[in-house]
């Protein structure tokens, strides 16, 4: 197999011209900001190609082996986007501008129609239907995250999807939907108006639905797809209402109009907080749905029914960040120092509370999950909630005039978004690698021992209770998983530590000094930090440490090239960029305090001082409590429960063997009593949210739906049928005048001539 994989390098040749496109465009004189169109257009143009060619050449030998059923084509399209994205981000970093706004592409050029009576004029008062590229620090960061991860995860997906028989001859659909989704994400990040943001947001929602339901013949997958779509729709309806309210206030949804001066609306009328705040809350409900926060969080765990690359990309690294992105966009509205609207403190507090509650709730449910992807799903929810908490605190602090602290935590929250996307994308890919190999090992086992399949019926390649001891067999995956977990837990100096610390500290600052209501989320955040330490360590220990708990786990072998490369890349990124970017004080760049990111920002000592020695005593105490809880208490308890040495003769890689050894050195404790308690039972039932919603829906929505169905079948259909019948009757009646006889035709013409005569004379006289 290894030899064959080495030959697969030559499949990557199509990437060379694709990568060259953007530099050629740039040399040809295209503005860097306009490369955004290329980033969106490449996957959009490739989408129908992959879909149609895949359908025509289905099962074709070349298509399968040379093009990986469209995977290579998708990857080349995404490499165009990646290079374009990098080019734009680097240019933006160098330019040191607050924002870059490209010339919009106009479809219906209304200024052809704008006329002041004497000459054609370009009247900006008209609402043009146009699309432009908007780049500021937030979208630059997210653009990098999106293009980079879409590319890597597509790479991963080629290895993951095309080696499974169940996907054979259907992979073109996967890759087509995958790049359509990528297009939606790039478009949403780069859009220059809330309307386009919403349109791309919905495209992502559609692709999410399609990809979760990729195995649509599985009842659970079909149901999960529907659930995800419907739940996010609930939020989207509110989002749309919010956008309409916003349009009502500002008369436009273009960023350039709205953010030009958020305190004056249409016709220079001052904007009232009592009008703007409800609109922003409506937008926030949309974000809650998209980013799977309490109480619209129920779809995310079920969404893990989709193929693992989908979970990695859509449900961890990109789409779920859309809500965070939109909330981060709200900052100019509340920025009282800079044309913001005063009196919107409640918004930040509400967002912070939703974040705090979700973080805690998701972390506690993650305690009892045995499905490796479900653990990661709840972890995603919990980490996104951290970011919401940070954004909420930022909004609160900025709206009350504490701009310095507010921007600090805003930068921290956005930095956490970056760290989390990188780490979680990698964790999902690593889990995919584990699942993939478990599945194959089990398959082979099953193949060799056909007589002995009594326990196979219960086998689940995703269940951590069947794993264990994989550290020696999957060195790359185990290191990736370890680094990712460390970043999520916030082990000092690695990845997420830098950003999480900022969020927790500033929330505490807000709680202690300005607003006691923030105390609740602040406490929840610290507790969640410790819980994160536990459940992430538990996942690693159950998977990689101890002895194999199932035959399949002892027959797992090495990963393929396609799967290993992105894991290694992201391991390096996760291990280094957190600290590196913190030393560059990226938070100040992301929050818009400092427009450029240059070498003169590189200050290690200041970064360390901010992280470890804050000026306020109380904050230092909070910081160290967090570190102790997340780095020591949580992981050590997890090791005590789930850790253990590998079985005899198995050697783990040096990078992880210390961890396995450490876990084996603790005295084991038995928690079976706790595991059977009613609390963990209800945690296993996800705190009964699904049951509650099912009950609520059956009492309210279902009767309404039944009435609607009746109304549709009888009233609406009746009207439609009536229209149809009348039209057809009218059609037959009017055609009866076309007799086919020339005499009648001339008669009709004479009648027409007479009528014209009567009308003209009648009007005049």
């Amino acid at each position: 197999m290894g030899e064959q994989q080495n030959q697969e390098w030559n499949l990557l040749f199509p990437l060379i011209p694709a990568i060259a496109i953007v530099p050629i465009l740039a040399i040809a004189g295209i503005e860097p900001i306009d490369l955004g169109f290329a980033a969106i257009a490449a996957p959009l143009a490739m989408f129908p190609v992959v879909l149609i060619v895949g359908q025509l050449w289905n099962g074709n030998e070349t298509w399968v082996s040379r093009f990986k059923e469209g995977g290579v084509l998708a990857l080349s399209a995404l490499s165009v986007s990646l290079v374009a994205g990098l080019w734009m981000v680097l240019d933006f970093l160098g330019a040191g501008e607050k924002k870059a706004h490209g010339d919009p592409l106009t479809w219906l050029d209304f200024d052809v129609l704008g006329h002041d009576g004497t000459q054609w004029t370009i009247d900006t008062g008209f609402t043009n239907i146009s699309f432009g590229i908007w780049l500021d620090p937030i979208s630059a960061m997210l653009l990098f995250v999106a293009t980079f991860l879409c590319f890597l995860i597509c790479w991963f997906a080629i290895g993951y999807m095309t080696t499974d028989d169940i996907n054979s001859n259907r992979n073109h659909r996967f890759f087509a939907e995958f790049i359509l989704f990528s297009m939606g994400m790039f478009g949403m990040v780069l859009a220059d108006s809330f309307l386009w943001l919403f349109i791309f947001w919905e495209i992502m929602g559609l692709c999410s639905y399609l990809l979760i339901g990729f195995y649509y013949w599985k009842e659970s997958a079909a149901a999960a797809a529907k659930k995800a779509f419907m739940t996010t729709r609930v939020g989207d309806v509110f989002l749309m209402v919010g956008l309409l309210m916003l349009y009502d206030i500002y008369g436009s949804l273009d960023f350039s109009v709205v953010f030009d001066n958020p305190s004056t609306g249409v016709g220079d009328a001052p904007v009232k907080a009592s009008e703007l705040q409800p609109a922003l809350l409506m937008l926030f409900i949309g974000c809650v749905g998209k980013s799977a926060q309490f109480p619209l969080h129920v779809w995310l765990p079920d969404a893990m029914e989709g193929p693992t690359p989908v979970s990695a990309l859509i449900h961890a690294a990109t789409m779920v960040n859309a809500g965070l992105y939109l909330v981060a966009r709200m900052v100019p509205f509340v920025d009282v120092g800079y044309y913001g609207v005063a009196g919107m403190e409640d918004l930040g507090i509400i967002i912070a509370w939703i974040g705090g509650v979700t973080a805690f709730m998701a972390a506690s449910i993650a305690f009892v999950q045995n499905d490796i992807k479900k653990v990661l799903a709840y972890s995603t929810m919990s980490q996104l909630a951290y970011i919401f908490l940070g954004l909420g605190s930022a909004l609160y602090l900025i709206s009350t005039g504490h701009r310095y602290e507010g921007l600090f935590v805003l930068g921290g929250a956005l930095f956490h978004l970056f760290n989390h996307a990188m780490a979680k994308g990698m964790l999902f890919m690593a889990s995919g690698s584990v699942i993939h190999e478990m599945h194959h090992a089990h398959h082979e086992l099953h193949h060799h021992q056909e007589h002995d399949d009594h326990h196979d019926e219960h086998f689940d390649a995703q269940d951590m209770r069947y794993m264990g001891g994989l550290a020696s067999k999957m060195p790359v995956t185990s290191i990736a998983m370890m680094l990712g977990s460390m970043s999520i837990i916030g082990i000092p100096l690695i990845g997420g530590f830098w950003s999480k610390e900022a969020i927790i500290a500033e929330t505490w600052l807000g709680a202690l000094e300005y607003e006691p209501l923030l105390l609740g989320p602040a406490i929840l955040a610290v507790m969640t930090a410790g819980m994160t330490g536990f459940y992430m360590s538990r996942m690693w220990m159950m998977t990689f440490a101890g002895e194999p708990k199932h035959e399949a786990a002892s027959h797992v072998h090495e990963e393929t090239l396609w799967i290993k490369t992105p894991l290694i890349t992201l391991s390096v990124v996760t291990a280094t960029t957190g600290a590196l970017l913190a030393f560059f004080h990226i938070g100040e760049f992301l929050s818009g305090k400092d427009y450029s990111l240059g070498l003169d920002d590189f200050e290690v000592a200041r970064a360390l001082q901010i992280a470890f020695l804050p000026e306020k005593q109380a904050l230092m105490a909070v910081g160290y409590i967090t570190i102790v809880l997340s780095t020591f208490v949580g992981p050590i308890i997890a090791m005590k429960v789930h850790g253990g040495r590998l079985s005899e003769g198995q050697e783990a890689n040096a990078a992880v063997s210390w961890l396995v050894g450490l876990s084996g050195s603790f005295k084991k404790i038995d928690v079976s009593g706790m595991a059977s308690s009613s609390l963990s039972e209800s945690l296993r039932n996800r705190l009964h949210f699904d049951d509650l919603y099912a009950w609520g829906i059956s009492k309210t929505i279902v009767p309404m739906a039944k009435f609607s169905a009746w109304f549709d079948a009888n009233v609406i259909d009746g009207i439609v049928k009536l229209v149809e019948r009348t039209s057809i009757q009218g059609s037959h009646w009017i055609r009866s005048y076309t007799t086919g006889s020339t005499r009648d035709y001339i008669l009709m013409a004479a009648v027409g001539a007479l009528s014209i005569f009567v009308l003209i004379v009648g009007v005049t006289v």
Partner: protein
Amino acid sequence: MILTSSEAIALAPEMTILFGITLAILVPNLGDARARIPLTNIKVPILWGGTRFEITSDPRAPGALSTICLAVACLLSLYAIESSEGKTISGVMEITGFGRFMSMVFTAALAITAAASIYRIPSKKITAADVKDADDQVTQSLMDNRRQVDLHILLMMVALGMSLMALSTNLFFLIVCLELASMASYVLVGFHKESSIGGEAGTKYFIVGSIASATGIYGMSLLYLWAGSLDFAILSATWGQMDTLDPLAGIGVGLMMVAFGFKVSAAPFHLAAPDAYSGTNAPIAGMLATASKAMGFVAMMRVLVGIAAPNEAVTAWAPALGILAVITMTWGNLAALSSENPKRMLAYSSVAHAGYMLAALAALGSGLADSGTQELLQIAIVFHLAVLVLFKMGAFLVLTLVEMEGGGSSISDLNGLARRDPILAICMFVFMLSLAGIPPLSGFLSKFLMINGLVTTTTDTGAITAASAMSWLQSVDPYFLLALAIVLNSALSLFYYLRIGLLMFFEEPAMDSPVPRAPLLRAVILASMVLTVLLGIGPASEQLLSLVETAISTF
């Protein structure tokens, strides 16, 4: 009347067509005839008569000739749009950007018709072995070289008449050119004389058309009585000086509306059109629906906007035209709903489209529109006429292919086209969507411009303070209702346009033999489809819009 060389150059497209007609007459007669010089035995070749050369007797020659000539004329016209300087010729013609734009549209439509006719009325050499029985002889005679020559000469005649018509500045000359094109097109409709349905269609079309023309000429004579001249400038000046409507002028214009109403197939003068479309070949029907209709609209705009432009005292024809427009679009769409013959359906759809354009013309005549909006309405009409050549003609070209395999008279012949030939079906579907006005296709853009013009025309008339939509609707000028009528009719029309899509994509095909290949025809269809999309959105559409704007500014 002798043209100077600069005038001949200004008339280059028409000269090209004339040259083509001459060639089409001469070339098939070239042979190896020799004449003996009297009193000697020396024979000199005179090339006229005798046994024809291989190449001149090739029945494919006339088709190639006319297609090339018309295409060249089209390109020459395109080139001349922006460079024409308003040169007047013999006092009856003026070379304007508008005239050149329209001759581009006409020649483009006819070039496509000529190219499609090569396949529809196939040409190949007849050998004795080919003729099997009497019926076959009928078919074979169609393929005869001479018939080919007739067809293509007629097509070029149509182009010549239309092209000159667009340049005319004199009403008499306009009618003469119009009749030149019309007479040729009557013959083209009945060209398939061996089939009873073709002969009948041609005769009907000819009779009704003649009566309409006679009415129009009578109207013209009334105008002459009234103004003492048929020159546009004088007529228009006289009209502008009227304080109240002179009955002679009013009735004259009204009678001309009848004549041009027949050309654009406005109800109730359209009745012969569906018979003509369904009786003739698909390419000729496409020509009637695009070039012929554009010709009618140009003539109508010349008379109604050029001469009888509404002044403050007189807005005589607008209400009549508005009512005509609503009747036309409703009649067309309703009748198309239950048509089972695709060519008839497209004929009725063509009637409906005429109604939309008439509505825009009526708004132009209402006198409510300011100069900017007037220009916009004219742009909308001319843009629509131009893009119709793509998608209306395209739909007829697809039907041409269906006809080539013997179908085309029933809508079920399109069943399952997507399975037999997906690319063709997608093209047809795009044409249908564009006809229905679905964004972002060019059919949407033109309809959008028209509705936008109509709404802008009446924008200041409704009471802003009206509490409900009903009371607003009562206060707004009735011309706004034309926009409403277009929207409602578009909804109605979706039914039969989408039905074609339903049949093509979801029905089982009656046969699984592949659709005829016809490479040139397919290339034209594909190009039309691509242009239908490109001219609806993006830089190409803006290019065309600015070209139309240039043309309108010299109207």
